[in-house]
């Protein structure tokens, strides 16, 4: 299964694997960390992992749609980062720290 060929020729599988790793890191950052900014970075990491897999598939099949989708995803990621940071500022104003451990009003 593992041969030198796997490491010498970088192919679709490598890219997909890398995007999977990046996506998992993003998920871990969102689920485990308490800092708002780090969570936002996790979301961005997830979206960029998706971009990588779009590009890899697109390159593999020679179909240009994937490239176009990456532009859509990048735009949306930018909008999401804008709204997320605005929310972080609003949270900082009310809670005096950008951390979700003060989120204790809504539960049950």
């Amino acid at each position, binding site marked *: 299964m593992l041969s030198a060929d796997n490491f010498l020729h970088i192919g679709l599988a490598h890219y*997909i694997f890398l995007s999977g790793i990046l*996506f998992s890191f*993003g*998920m871990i950052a*969102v689920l485990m960390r308490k800092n*708002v900014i780090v*969570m936002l970075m996790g*979301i961005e990491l*997830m*979206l960029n*992992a*998706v971009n990588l*897999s*779009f590009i*890899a*598939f*697109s390159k*593999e*099949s020679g*179909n240009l*749609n*994937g490239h176009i*989708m990456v532009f*859509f*995803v990048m735009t*949306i990621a930018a*909008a*999401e980062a804008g*709204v*997320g940071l*605005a*929310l972080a500022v*609003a*949270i900082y104003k*009310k*809670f005096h720290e950008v951390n*979700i451990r003060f*989120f204790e*009003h*809504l*539960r*049950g």
Partner: protein
Amino acid sequence: MQVAFSLIDFLLVAPALALFVASCTPLLIKVLCGNQEQNSFATLIYAYVGIVVAAGFTLSMLGVARSAFDGALVFDGISFCTTLIVLLVTAVALTFARDSYSTNPGQFTEATFLTLNAAIGMLTVVWANDLIVTFVGIELFSLSLYVLIAMSMEEKLSKEAAFKYFILGSFASAIMLYGISFIYGTVGSTYLPDLLQASPNLLATNRLFLLGFVLLLVGICFKIAVFPFHSWAPDVYQGAPTPLTAFMATGVKAVSLAFFLRLVASQAFTVEKFWPFVDVLQWLIALTILVGNVGAFRQKSLKRMLAYSSIAHSGYVMIGVVAAGIGGSSMLGAGGVMFYIFSYSIMTAGAFGVLHILEPHADADLTLEDLKGLAREKPWVALTMSILLMSLTGIPPTLGFFGKFFIFSAAIKQGLVWLAVWGVVGSVISVFYYLRPVVAMYMEEPLLRRGVLRLRPLSYFTVAFLGLLVVACGLAAEPVYQAMLSSVSQVF
């Protein structure tokens, strides 16, 4: 490649264009008048004009089944029904938002802009025939809603709710997008008809496609709040201003379910390799109903109680989605789902509307105590609330009963007897917590002196209208159901 759009394409998307123009006009006037907040009633009128024009365009296109913009958007029965439902709840939510204490009166123009743009996003999802268009629509309404929730007057709860919604919503979108990328990689396109055509074959042979499809379904289940992905719903619904809760709980679920219906129209659930996932989905539905009802049972806050009950309702409607996806007489399931979306939207918007009317100040969180003896002070409000709650329970002459009836009978016809039985058991549990407020309103003495509530005629009128609609459509359930069936028959 020559890309040509005809005039009819623009006519078909005219509802979204009308909403967009109506959303920009008040904002533009505000900016031109030196950032002075204009009369909120005038703003509301602009929004109404936009919504009425949009509804007019939609109705004028009724029965046309065609696609626009090179097949990126599709206009069929599901699109039309859901478009009308979304427009209705938008109008209702805006009416409540103007009167509410929890929305900032100095920023009603912005709230209108964002609400109407959220509605445009919802319409985009409903019309989308390409997964990437669906994704753009989902993000459009989600981003608008995050900002809307955070804009509320209330200080801490709403910020917390907005951030929770933001993180979980973006998380779900990222998962869904990852699924879309796998689907793109295996099918070679994100065009929905291509996907639906390829899915029965690919689901059986291609693991990557299977993973992509499952991730896509997980993303939608997040939006609908199906069991393991439901935990955001109570927090967000409680923390958001009540008018917005009415909007989110109805509009977002309606469009996500419409999209889900389009996905299951391929009958992908009939593929043998996918059966384990269908089994898992059925268990999740059963757990959704259980968690929703037991959760609602335990709540003091009425808003949170309705939030949990909306989780239970998404469980009931998902029974219909499964019934629509497993072959056989799937049309009955799909028609039941459309009918349920309609009835659920009206009932839930109305119930949150009553809570909104009774809220005395910005960060009020009504409990059962606040409803005691309401029938003596405000008999009409109490009557409307009772009708809406009975409809949510599913007591016969109301709309909610027929919603459940059509879903459960479709499920039994499709052989999902255990789910139907489970749904009925859930409804029986729900009687207790839905009727508790009714008992409190009619049979108990008021404990506290209620503050004098400002008279808000538009909200009263809207709630009364929704209550009447519940009774009227309940009495005329058969014609409505037939209309829904014929609307889904173009797809199923």
